[in-house]
């Protein structure tokens, strides 16, 4: 029987050795115990004896090569014996050295115990995880799907990718600068794949950020077991973890109107609507004129669909400043988006190639027909299967109830993001995450929603923070409003985007900025300085003193602040 010659274990611990010299050549007859090659290790140079008597049939490792201990370096065969098959072509491919028969030294099986376990790796969960890890906590992050949550995978990021492409298309198509511009169309497949690349890159980035911060991500569906124990199941296997604190950040999913089921084919949710491999419907009914509805209206209108928004309330994007809403409504309608307010949807019947939606409008029943229906009436919290009852988490209107420190009624259990149903925005979730973590780590921090901006990605964008005019009045502030129109901004004109305005609501006595509302090109970026001003408690006078680069869109803020002080120079009263 053929015998393998290996690089031997040489007492204590040598891990590799170099073959200095073959003392016998291939084909030579060797006797058991006869030195056949010289080996050099970090400690010694020694001759290695033949383990058997026979022909040195094949030398597998040439002189001068360093190989790990136990690597097969030659084969000795008995007289007349053929070289075994697997050694016929040099060193077998992928063949690893024969593993030592000693058991692997496995780390002591530690109890899986963490300072903090976070259920859900959306923007809230990821941010919380990283901050907690930065602060020295051992963090477990549990996610059943992809990292990044709704925002990255089915929300903010993919829609921004589309909107950016559609904006370029609009620019070209609606301009008479480019010859043939009207004939330009967009390649839906490429647009979708660009979106996928963006999302993929962000996912990878998130994953490496988490790793760099030392967060342990685990894939699977998390369930509460009572106490601070969690069970995570993935592919039928479950594992139990223990954590001192919990953050529930499981997010939300699209909701529907009772009686109308989202089938994903005719009645879509935002999830399916993002899957643009489907043909763009000729006409689309969007039920719900909130942020999601309006954004999708912009996307689909931009892609050529006829879009009708059916909103139950008297205005779209309710709670926003009336002037912004009115202005946006006009601009959307100008783009050809039909907006029906006060329209309560009663039912939807799916026909062969269309859906018929029945609407109660001021007591009158009306019927609308669309090729597809997009349900955008809001989002419902992801709490199914979590077993919240195991620890007795208190709920409020279907969402998890928390206080301003993000604590639930159960000690050490926090909740953030869509699942608490407060602001349902990615950055709000992140801020909530940081609030929760800092409280967990022994600081005292409360969430202040007055300083969280709201961003709406339409053409043009809208952005706001704090109180709107009527809210401020209701709260009893003595206020004054400063305004500035985009049409008075050189930059806006130059960009060909002169539609929109800035509106600042500030209290008279101290000049405290209570709210800022912007409709216009890049509103979501322009609002940034106002956020800083409010955080630092700058007065509106401070805001008016800032010298801006010219021409910039952010000049509009300074101008609005000056207008508030009746010191406006480029303003004409509205």
């Amino acid at each position: 029987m053929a015998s393998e010659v290996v690089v031997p274990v040489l007492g204590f611990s040598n891990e590799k050795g170099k073959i200095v010299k073959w003392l016998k050549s291939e084909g030579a007859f060797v006797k058991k115990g006869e030195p056949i090659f010289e080996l050099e290790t970090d400690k010694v140079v020694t001759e290695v004896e033949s383990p058997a008597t026979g022909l040195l049939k094949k030398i597998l490792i040439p002189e001068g090569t360093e190989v790990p201990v136990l690597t097969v370096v030659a084969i000795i065969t008995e007289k007349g014996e053929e070289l075994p098959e697997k050694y016929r072509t040099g060193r077998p491919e992928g063949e690893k050295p024969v593993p030592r028969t000693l058991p692997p030294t496995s780390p002591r099986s530690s109890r899986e115990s963490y300072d903090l376990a976070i259920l859900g790796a959306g923007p809230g969960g990821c941010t919380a995880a990283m901050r907690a890890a930065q602060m020295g906590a051992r963090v477990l992050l549990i996610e059943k799907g992809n990292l990044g949550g709704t925002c990255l995978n089915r929300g903010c990021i993919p829609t921004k990718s589309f909107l950016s492409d559609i904006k370029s298309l609009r620019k070209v198509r609606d301009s008479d600068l480019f010859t043939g511009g009207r004939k330009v169309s967009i390649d839906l497949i490429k647009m979708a794949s660009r979106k996928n690349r963006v999302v993929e890159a962000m996912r990878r980035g998130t994953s490496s950020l988490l790793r760099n911060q030392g967060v342990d991500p685990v894939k699977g569906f998390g369930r509460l077991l009572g106490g601070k124990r969690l069970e995570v199941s993935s592919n039928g296997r479950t594992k139990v973890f223990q954590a001192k604190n919990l953050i529930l950040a499981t997010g939300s999913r699209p909701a529907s109107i009772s009686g109308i089921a989202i089938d994903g084919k005719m009645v879509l949710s935002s999830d399916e609507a993002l899957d643009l491999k489907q043909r763009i419907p000729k006409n689309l009914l969007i039920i719900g004129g909130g942020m999601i509805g309006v954004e999708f209206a912009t996307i689909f209108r931009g892609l050529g669909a006829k879009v009708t928004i059916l909103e139950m309330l008297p205005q779209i994007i309710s709670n926003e400043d009336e002037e912004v809403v009115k202005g946006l409504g006009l601009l959307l309608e100008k783009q050809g988006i039909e907006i029906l307010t006060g329209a309560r949807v009663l039912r939807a019947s799916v026909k062969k190639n269309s859906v018929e939606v029945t609407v109660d409008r001021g007591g009158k029943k009306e019927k609308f027909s669309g090729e597809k229906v997009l349900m955008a009436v809001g989002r419902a919290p992801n709490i199914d299967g979590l077993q919240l009852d195991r620890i007795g988490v208190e709920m409020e209107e279907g969402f998890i109830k928390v206080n301003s420190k993000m604590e639930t009624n159960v000690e050490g259990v926090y909740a953030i993001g869509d699942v608490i149903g407060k602001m349902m925005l990615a950055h709000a979730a992140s801020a909530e995450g940081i609030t929760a973590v800092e409280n967990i780590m022994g600081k005292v921090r409360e969430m202040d929603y007055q300083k969280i901006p709201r961003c709406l990605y339409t053409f043009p964008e809208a952005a706001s923070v704090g109180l709107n005019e009527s809210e401020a009045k209701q709260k009893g502030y003595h206020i004054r409003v400063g305004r500035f129109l985009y049409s008075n901004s050189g930059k806006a004109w130059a960009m060909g985007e002169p539609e929109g305005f800035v509106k600042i609501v500030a209290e008279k006595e101290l000049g405290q900025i209570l709210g800022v509302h912007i409709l216009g090109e890049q509103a979501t970026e322009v609002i940034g300085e106002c956020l800083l001003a409010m955080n630092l408690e700058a007065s509106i006078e401070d805001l008016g003193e800032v010298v801006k680069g010219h021409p910039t869109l952010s000049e509009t803020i300074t101008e609005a602040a000056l207008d508030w002080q009746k010191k406006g120079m480029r303003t004409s009263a509205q």
Partner: protein
Amino acid sequence: MHLTKDRAMSKSNVPDGSEVLRAVPLVRWVAKKERIDLSLVKGTGPEGVILPKDLERFRTTQSAMGTVVPTEKRSASSLARKLATKKGISLEKMSGTGNRGRIMMADVARAVEKGAIFLDGQGMFGQTLPMTQMRKAIAKRMSLSVFTAPHIYFFTDVEMDALNRRREEILPDFERKFRIRISINDFFVKAVALTLGEFPILNSRLQGEEIYIMPEINVGLAVALEEGLIVPAILRADRLSLAEISQIRTDLVDRARTRKLKWEEIERGTFTISSLAQFDITFFTAILNPPQSGILSIGKETDHLALREGKVVTKKIARFGLSVDHRVIDGVLAAKFLESLKHRLENPSLGSL
């Protein structure tokens, strides 16, 4: 020499010059659990290490006062400055909760609520000042006292020489051992507490038709603040050593000045000492602090000539006044109390002072 070198006794400064926070493990554990910022707690252990009792004291105070972060730099937000100016208060002694101790609007609002620190004299004349919460409380209480409890007054002169000597004697020792500067008031507190032990009736209150002798002797010490008088009380002063009284008194007065007293510390007094010894007031009467039945007023020490064994000598004399609620206490008893107190103070080496 066989004791292990004690880290607790070693210098508490780290190389960069900042103070290291020192607390025993139990304190750290509780603080972590209850999320208490230990940098706010004053330690009374060796080298200022925070002991469980310090935390206990802080915890109760804190519940009354809310979190206040002391700050050095007077950085304030634009709106905070405006608000302070509008309310006519100074940012000087205010604590800020913003980043790096920046004073924010909320801090100013809180200061206003607690009783303002007025800008020095600025714009005060001819202005109507709103009554602070404290002023209102004092006003109400004093009127109540005068209108409900019939006061009678007793006076005596106390020779202070022996007591002063005694203080001089033990002063350096106390400074070395306890790092406290014992004050003459500490002797008064102790003497009063011990004398109250002899005459429990002066440590009582009227409850309806009954006189209730208070189970503990808690001696209140009136502290003058800009906006009024506040009387934190030293709990069970009769059982405390002079050093303890001194430590507690210092802490209470400090906190009274920085408005960090908790309500119970003010409420729990069973007898009050009001001393104006540091002012040029030789004699005054005090109004009872209800529901207490007695208050001692102490004036400034003055030089008096006296005959002793045929020779004229100078004596330091302080005039003591005792006001009592006549509904509870008779004249003779009050007189005996005052006499006993006088004896105790004039012969400090005899008794337990």
